[in-house]
């Protein structure tokens, strides 16, 4: 995590303004997870809507607890061998003073822990989009638990923890291009290579059941992302957070236009799903880069991300891997684009004086970015595939074929997303006419 510059002579003191700002940013980032749930939930077929929503929502429960117990300590504690962190005072967040500041900043440690928690919640939720319609809920809960412990917490340390190898190397990742998006996208690829395709992939039509829900989700993500990006500077004393805020908006707008233009030329229509997807691709790409580039650079990054991600989502049909909602095509590809383009577009006037190729800096930073990108990508891909394989061989990752075809919502959650019975028919069962003890009714009739 980039850190606000403070006056070198004086020890930093708690800033009420920065603290308030960061608490709001934390809440904004929290909102991204339900936003993501809607974004994904609208894209699946009616029969798996609730499962898709729940795969994100459960992360708010599981990761929060793990973060308090040991996650924060592993991610941001004192460096151990450039790979993980540890600070026993932070286990259970128990020995932290109320006014104790996060190193080098003007905000309390508790605020930093809360802000970073929201990132840790969002990242595994991002993976879920690739696994739509087919993963047992218990297996998913176990996967999240193992994945954040073995992959996310250490990778966050590599990138943002003092002493982490990528941090020390000088890899620039303002708000999570590598630690969040490449990490989640590579993990998604690793898991789907283990668990396989949905029944009917490439044969049955799998249309989004609610594009308005997708738009609502994309809007909430965009809104929350201001907290995610601008908040990552952890304060407002030098204006870098404000630059990030502007670049977030600029790149995202440009990416919407890029995706739509590609789609119109290639497929003949300006689609709603394209606009929403373009927005997310732009947000992803500017996430690592927005503190280092100018607004014009942000436009370039946004357009490039919008067009390349629109092209990348077609790869799954060509290579026949079922990245159901394009986590690889948008988050992995978008994250790589944003992270690598820093090597070209860094102006040297933002978060640091590092200049990219187009600003006279040569290719030094580009090679550093490559190291960060491919280090995180390779580790996340392999570790995630191994974790998925472990679960797949023990309790099993997938629901049965019957349950998948009939709809995972009924099988795993004993609910259906929408009640269509108003027009007569349907499976209305009133308590008066046919009382059912809750304990007996695990399965609901179709």
């Amino acid at each position, binding site marked *: 995590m980039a850190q606000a510059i403070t006056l070198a002579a004086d020890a930093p003191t708690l800033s009420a303004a920065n603290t308030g700002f960061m608490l709001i940013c934390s809440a904004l980032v929290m909102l991204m997870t339900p936003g993501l749930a809607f974004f994904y939930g609208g894209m699946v077929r009616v029969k798996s809507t609730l499962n898709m929503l729940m795969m994100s929502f459960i992360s708010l429960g599981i990761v929060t607890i793990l973060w308090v117990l040991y996650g924060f300590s592993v991610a941001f504690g004192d460096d151990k061998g450039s790979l993980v962190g540890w600070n026993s005072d932070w286990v259970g967040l128990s020995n932290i003073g109320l006014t104790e500041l996060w190193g080098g900043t003007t905000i309390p440690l508790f605020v930093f822990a809360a802000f970073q928690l929201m990132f840790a919640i969002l990242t595994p939720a991002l993976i879920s989009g690739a696994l739509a319609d087919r993963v047992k809920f218990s297996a998913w809960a176990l996967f999240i638990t193992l994945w954040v412990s073995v992959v996310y917490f250490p990778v966050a340390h590599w990138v943002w923890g003092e002493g982490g190898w990528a941090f020390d190397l000088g890899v620039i990742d303002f708000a999570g291009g590598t630690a969040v998006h490449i990490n989640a996208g590579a993990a998604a690829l690793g898991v789907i290579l283990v668990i396989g395709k949905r029944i009917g992939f490439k044969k049955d*039509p799998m*249309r*989004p059941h609610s594009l308005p829900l997708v738009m609502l989700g994309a809007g909430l993500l965009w809104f929350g992302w201001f907290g995610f990006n601008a908040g990552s500077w952890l304060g407002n004393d030098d204006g870098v957070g404000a630059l990030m805020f502007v670049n977030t908006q600029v790149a995202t707008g440009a990416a919407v236009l890029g995706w739509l233009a590609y*789609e119109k030329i*290639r*497929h*003949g*229509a300006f*689609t709603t*799903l*394209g606009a929403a*997807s373009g927005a997310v691709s732009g947000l992803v790409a500017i996430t690592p880069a927005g503190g280092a580039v100018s607004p014009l650079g942000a436009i370039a990054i946004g357009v490039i991300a919008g067009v390349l991600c*629109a092209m990348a*989502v*077609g790869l799954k*049909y060509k290579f026949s891997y079922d990245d159901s909602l*394009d986590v690889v095509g948008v988050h992995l590809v978008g994250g790589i684009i944003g992270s690598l383009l820093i090597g070209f577009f860094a102006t040297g006037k933002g978060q640091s004086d590092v200049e990219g190729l187009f600003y006279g800096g040569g290719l030094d930073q580009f090679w550093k970015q490559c190291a960060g990108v491919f280090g995180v990508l390779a580790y996340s891909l392999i570790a995630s595939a191994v974790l998925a394989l472990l679960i797949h061989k023990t309790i099993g990752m997938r629901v049965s074929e019957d349950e998948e075809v009939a709809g995972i919502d009924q099988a795993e959650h004993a609910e259906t997303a929408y009640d269509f019975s108003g027009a007569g028919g349907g499976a209305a069962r009133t308590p008066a006419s046919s009382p059912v003890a809750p304990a007996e009714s695990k399965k609901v009739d179709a």
Partner: protein
Amino acid sequence: MKLITAVVKPHRLDEIKEALQAFGVHGLTVTEASGYGRQRGHTEVYRGAEYTVDLVPKVRIEVLVEDDDAEQLVDVVVKAARTGKIGDGKVWTIPVETAVRVRTGERGPDAL
């Protein structure tokens, strides 16, 4: 008695209802349906994946009528349903053996 069934474009429903009322028809049943004829369906694109959607939305109108009125009523429905474009739908009749008004038990044409 005859049963007239019309499967037509949804936006013609009001016209058909009014035309039938003007003729003196007292009741009808409408259901939402989907299907295709020569019109076929349309193509939708989601993130580059193109789907051909065969079935297009239609409404199915069912009217029970006396034998003598049937031919004329078919004309009334067809005239109200027609837009002249492909996909206007179909209208047909079949003979009906009996009909009963549930409230009173009246049978045959009296039940209409």
